[in-house]
């Protein structure tokens, strides 16, 4: 294995062709090294040919009244119905402002590989229904929904694929029926009315907890048994969410945007703010995606994509940009930096902004995670090319090389042993008229409300482990009928997440709300800065044990928690907790009322 990599290194020195080229092009055109049994795959992929696709924001079909595209069917008048909360929303949920969308999961075809290769790739994605009822083209990443706290949303999702789906809106606070529970499905030909109330949980005194307002939501398929192949085929999309606090930061030009435009209108148009969904794939020589259906350890691709395009380039003005990085791979972990090792400002973890940003040179990102980053390109002369690099080697499904602490270290010392360039930034002069955004590491962003030990009502412990070739939690497997934990509505619990395996990595995702890391039981360490506020995915490296605290508010019913290595999740490292009127220390049958 080392031999092939060394060979690639020695073939370095391809001309950069740029005046102000920064960084090594040693790996240009060479595939990632992976342990794959498939040898018919595409190896050579031209770089920087695609321009970075911006996820397309979509407008609602209507506000306040059911759109014509619903064909006269009331909300809930579809096979899988609507969340019961839709009928019982309190007055301050502003149901009169409800925005209605209709979406279809279906197949599409696009250039994921650079167009000069002439190979179109079939994929599974999402399309919007137009106001006249016609269905648009499927895209992947899917159409971008833009939410605002205080504006409820209904999305009628119809499945035109041959397999069942369940759309999980990852990072938000939703009713059980609409959360994308692994067994609350949309079967082929049927629809489910997903109800996203966009409300914040309430504090004990009844006021809304603005510390819990999410920014970076993404959606992806979550259907039990087949999540991984669906995500790998393209069933994922993005959905930023705004509240008054964040809109004000944009309006005051603290966060990148066009003041007066990016904080207005239904879609908050913003050329200086985009998701970067990181994916990896293996392609047949025909351009068709290759996925090993029976590898339940993890799918690693040898070609990297961003927002559904292999190795794109992105022309940036010499100013600050906000990049919402998204680990959209099913099994690949990455450590990301700029090719000149220059500083970036990290402003959030998963869905939530930090109280204050952190200056970093690199960050780790596992499947399911979001990392909110501001990069200031004003430090570069127009004409400069700078690269986005992954400096974390991972050749097998177990996980990357190295320790979690090293991967998440915010500073990079020396030259990394492994470099794989993902995207090229082409810097041009900033358009006049809009000053550079003002955010720095000193800027106050979103307040944080820590959970105190005295608030904890119940402690539970979950061990993530391998069992007889399958993936288990506390020795047990996912059962759609069993609520493995039953927390009381409005309570706080403390959970220990334990990975006793020496080799495997498990990113643990808990639905419903953020959770807060308390300490690492293995090392005794307090969480690092980026983990000391809120997250919805806690990374468990080999032999580690992390204590978290979490609130369970607003919604009753079952919610998932699981490994976000989607292959592990499928067989069947997944549990559910059911928020109920009274807590139970042991498992109980699930209440199917919410399905």
């Amino acid at each position, binding site marked *: 294995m080392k031999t092939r990599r060394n060979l690639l290194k020695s073939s370095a020195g391809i001309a950069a062709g740029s005046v102000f080229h920064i960084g090594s092009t040693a790996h240009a055109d060479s595939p990632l090294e992976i342990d794959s*049994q498939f040898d018919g795959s595409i190896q050579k992929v031209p770089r920087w040919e695609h321009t970075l696709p911006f996820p397309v924001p979509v407008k609602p079909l209507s506000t306040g009244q059911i759109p014509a595209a619903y064909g006269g069917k009331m909300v809930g008048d579809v096979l899988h119905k609507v969340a019961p909360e839709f009928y019982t929303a309190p007055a301050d949920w502003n149901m009169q402002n409800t925005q209605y969308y209709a979406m279809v999961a279906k*197949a599409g075809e696009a250039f994921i590989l650079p167009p000069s290769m002439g190979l179109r790739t079939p994929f599974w994605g999402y399309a919007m229904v137009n106001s006249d009822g016609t269905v648009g083209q499927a895209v992947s990443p899917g159409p971008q929904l833009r939410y605002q706290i205080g504006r409820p949303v209904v999305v009628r999702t119809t499945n035109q694929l041959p397999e069942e789906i369940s759309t999980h809106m990852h990072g938000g606070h939703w009713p059980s029926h609409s959360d994308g529970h692994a067994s609350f499905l949309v079967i082929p030909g049927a629809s489910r009315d997903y109800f996203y109330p966009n409300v914040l949980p309430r504090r004990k005194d009844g006021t809304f907890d603005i510390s819990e307002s999410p920014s970076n939501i993404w959606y992806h398929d979550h259907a039990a048994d087949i999540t991984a192949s669906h995500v790998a085929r393209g069933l994922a999309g993005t959905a930023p969410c705004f509240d008054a606090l964040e809109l004000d930061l944009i309006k005051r030009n603290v966060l990148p945007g066009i003041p007066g435009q990016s904080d207005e209108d239904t879609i908050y148009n913003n050329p200086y703010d985009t998701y970067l969904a990181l994916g990896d794939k293996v392609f047949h020589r025909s351009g068709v995606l*290759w996925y090993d259906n029976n590898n*339940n350890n993890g799918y690693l691709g040898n070609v990297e994509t961003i927002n559904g395009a292999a190795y794109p380039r992105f022309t940036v003005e010499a100013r600050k940009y906000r990049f919402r990085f998204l680990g959209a791979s099913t099994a690949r972990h990455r450590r990301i930096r700029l090719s000149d090792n220059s500083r970036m400002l990290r402003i959030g973890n998963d869905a939530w902004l930090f109280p204050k940003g952190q200056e970093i040179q690199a960050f780790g990102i596992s499947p399911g995670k979001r990392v909110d980053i501001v990069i200031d390109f004003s430090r570069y002369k127009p004409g400069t090319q700078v690269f986005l690099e992954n400096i974390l080697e991972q050749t097998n499904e177990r996980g990357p090389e190295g320790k979690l602490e090293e991967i998440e270290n915010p500073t990079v010392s020396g030259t990394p042993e492994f470099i794989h360039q993902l995207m090229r930034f082409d810097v041009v002069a900033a358009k006049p008229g809009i000053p550079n955004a003002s955010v720095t590491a000193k800027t106050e962003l979103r307040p944080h409300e820590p959970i105190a030990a005295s608030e904890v009502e119940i402690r539970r412990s979950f061990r993530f482990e391998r069992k007889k070739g*399958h993936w288990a939690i506390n020795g047990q497997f996912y059962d759609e009928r069993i609520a493995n934990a039953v927390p009381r509505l409005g309570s706080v619990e403390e959970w220990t997440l334990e990975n006793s395996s020496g080799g495997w990595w498990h990113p643990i995702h808990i639905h419903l709300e953020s959770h807060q890391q308390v300490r690492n039981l293995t090392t005794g360490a307090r969480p690092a800065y980026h983990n000391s506020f809120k997250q919805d995915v806690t990374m468990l490296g080999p032999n580690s044990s992390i204590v978290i605290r979490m609130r369970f508010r607003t919604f*009753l019913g079952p919610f998932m928690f699981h490994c976000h290595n989607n292959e592990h999740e*499928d067989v069947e490292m997944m549990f559910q907790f059911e928020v109920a009127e009274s807590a139970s220390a042991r498992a109980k049958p699930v209440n199917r009322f919410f399905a």
Partner: protein
Amino acid sequence: MMAAANWHRRCLSVLFSCLLSQPGNLTAAGDTGLQNKGLLLMRQEFADSLPDPVLTNHRGERVRFFTDLVKGHAVVINFFYADCERSCPLTNVTIRNLRGDFTASFGRSVRFLSITVNPDQDTPEVLARYAKQHAVESADPDVPDWQFLTGNRDEIRELRWHLGMREKDPAIDNDPSQHAATLIVGNHATGRWAKLNPLVRHSLVREKAQRIIGWTAAQRYADIHAEVSAAGTGQAPPRPVLRIQEGPLPSGGEEPQLPVLGVVSDQLAGVERSGVRVSASSLRGKVTVYGRIYTLCPHGSQAVLAAMKRLTDAFAETGEFHVVAVSPSSPRETPEFFQTFANLAGAKKEDPWWFVTASKDEVNRFTETVLGLEPPRLIPAEERLHPLEEEEHDLRLVLVDQEGRIRGRYEVFHPDPFLSNEAAWQVGADAARLLAAPSPDSVSP
């Protein structure tokens, strides 16, 4: 009635054989949106790229894995070896049950393929004997085929790897028991494949397998259609009363009623360890758990006694709960013997827990005809762990409600500790439900 059902099944088989001669049609019939060639390839390439080694089945027929067995079919594959004692028997039970489940719905369009990972030892002759032991051949033409297959060691390993049964660590990879607890379920026509875990509830395994094996959406999602149509008429749902922040409990989510499986209509004529003659009729009005124990059985009875102890501890205080351990009497197993035995099991004198002995015939009659447990199985001499251990007993606990109706049987002793824990938890949960609802519903047996 039977004839009609059989006719229906036969009819299905004919339908499948027609369809199977044109695999292309199957996809068109069962799926939507797959006219695109690339999409078809995306779904089918996994199976199309499988190796095609020549294997020999237990009937001595030589078959090619992909061409003769997988192409155009739905398959359930497992890796086993004839000497496997721990995981394989459990997996075989799952396969036997799935075969029964799918006879009426899928007939011979689904195949069960058990491939040995020990081909040097598992020759076609060994497999023939193994197949005979498992009574896999059936005269009914609708029972799905179950073949045991052997072949070249290296080719089988390569096939196993391609099917995703590969461990990075060669030591684990070469250990055949590591691969025994997985089913690979696939459908060549629809391109859907998955590894299934036979260690979960059987109905889960069946539902998951059906999603893959099903040729039409109606077959694949039968369970969901059933649940949705049971929940309502397809109209907008009634407004439930639902608590969002502060408010009343949800009104929905009525828990399903426990089934009525029979009635304890008859007495057990036996003697309690106290020496007193007892009768089951005096337990009317109480929730009662019956179980058979066997004082020589080291592990099975331990599990049963432990479950009984937990139940007694949990519910003794209600005064409405009773446990009955039944055992055949022998010169050794006297009431006095059972006093000591019960002490060792943690039963106190005042506990609502009887240890009842009766003649062996009486115990067999009561457990089989009244409690509905399986009759004892004679253990072949060479399988006996103990010279006195002649019979294997059905050690399930039987839950009886206040009206003397049987509401559940629970396998608290199972080779898989997960399943036995689940059963032990379930009997407690169900007993609690019966105790919480003292006025019984009007269901009659």
